[in-house]
């Protein structure tokens, strides 16, 4: 390896280039374009040949699940075993772009290292997950849909958050993976299911999907205190299975929509609970909000 001189900082041009380069590689990582199987097969065949092997039988399939199922059918591989031998294609953009950018700003790699890095880059630019076995290689197409919330967590309220062309994928609610039917068949999700679900993160997601207001109605919430102003709201108490008593503020926003917010069980009045939602503990200093959206 040559070119060991330490690089202290980027030039202004390199700083600009870094952002463009990052966006370009993020684009590869999140691409939902159909895979370019042929380009990937060529590179993977070269890997096999480097190792003294002939080209494997390729199985190019629509999703990682389809690949894992095929491997199970052909080689009786368990899912864990299959996944332990899987590379992530486009989802390896992070380390590939890091090394490529270093080369771009002057780090010199041995020629063979540079060539191999280029091959890994081609794979990341063309396919989703791939699994090289002795005589067979499984390659998944890229997903057709990847959706995030505004905090860049996987999230989709109306469909799977990651969906492949065979319809397979995963449902995710603000970064929490949830049963697909909660999104695809919303009627299957009831307040009882939501409130007794073992996984707490998924339980929170379920209540948000249903809307706390609907959950409270189903649980026949008891009124603790009701303010005459609907924008201050009504303090409710419910008994949640396995958890116990919880309190919620049912309140109308400035646009007339009614919703419910969990509040601490120590809240005694709707006004106190409303103030708490604004981070105000001293209810005497709390002025009624003019608009809540």
């Amino acid at each position: 390896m040559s070119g060991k001189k330490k690089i202290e900082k980027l030039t202004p041009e390199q700083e600009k280039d870094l952002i463009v380069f990052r966006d370009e590689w993020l684009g590869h990582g999140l691409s939902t374009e159909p895979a370019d199987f042929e380009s990937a097969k060529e590179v993977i065949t070269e890997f096999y040949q480097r190792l003294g092997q002939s080209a494997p039988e390729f199985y190019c399939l629509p999703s990682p699940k389809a690949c894992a199922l095929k491997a199970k059918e052909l080689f009786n591989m368990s899912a864990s075993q299959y996944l332990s031998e899987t590379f992530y294609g486009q989802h390896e953009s992070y380390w590939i772009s890091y090394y490529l950018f270093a080369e771009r700003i002057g780090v010199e790699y041995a020629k063979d290292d540079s060539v191999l890095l280029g091959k890994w880059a081609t794979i990341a630019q063309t396919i989703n997950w791939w699994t090289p076995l002795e005589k067979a290689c499984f390659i998944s197409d890229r997903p057709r849909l990847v959706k995030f919330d505004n905090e860049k967590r996987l999230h989709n309220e109306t469909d799977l958050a990651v969906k492949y062309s065979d319809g397979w994928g995963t449902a995710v609610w603000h970064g929490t993976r949830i049963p697909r039917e909660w999104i695809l068949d919303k009627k299957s999700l009831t307040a009882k299911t939501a409130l007794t679900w073992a996984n707490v993160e998924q339980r929170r997601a379920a209540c948000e999907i249903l809307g706390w207001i609907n959950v409270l109605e189903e649980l026949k919430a008891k009124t603790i205190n009701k303010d005459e102003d609907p924008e201050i709201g009504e303090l409710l108490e419910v008994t949640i299975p396995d958890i116990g008593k919880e309190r919620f503020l049912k309140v109308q926003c400035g646009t007339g929509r009614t919703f419910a917010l969990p509040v601490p069980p120590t809240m005694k009045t709707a006004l106190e609970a409303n103030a708490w939602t604004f981070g105000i503990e001293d209810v005497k200093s709390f002025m009624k909000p003019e608009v809540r959206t």
Partner: protein
Amino acid sequence: MYEEIFDTRIERRGMYLRALFSEDLADLLLRTLFTGTSEMDYDAVYEQVLDDLHTT
């Protein structure tokens, strides 16, 4: 086959970049590229494959 192919990755061939950059630059590149291009949370997909095949 997996292990042999894994060994063609540049860091497995002894190329580690951090020593070639100042600490600030190394942090900037790691944050911008290494973290910045890993937004896709594929753990969810991984776990879904495991779940689905265990119930198939």
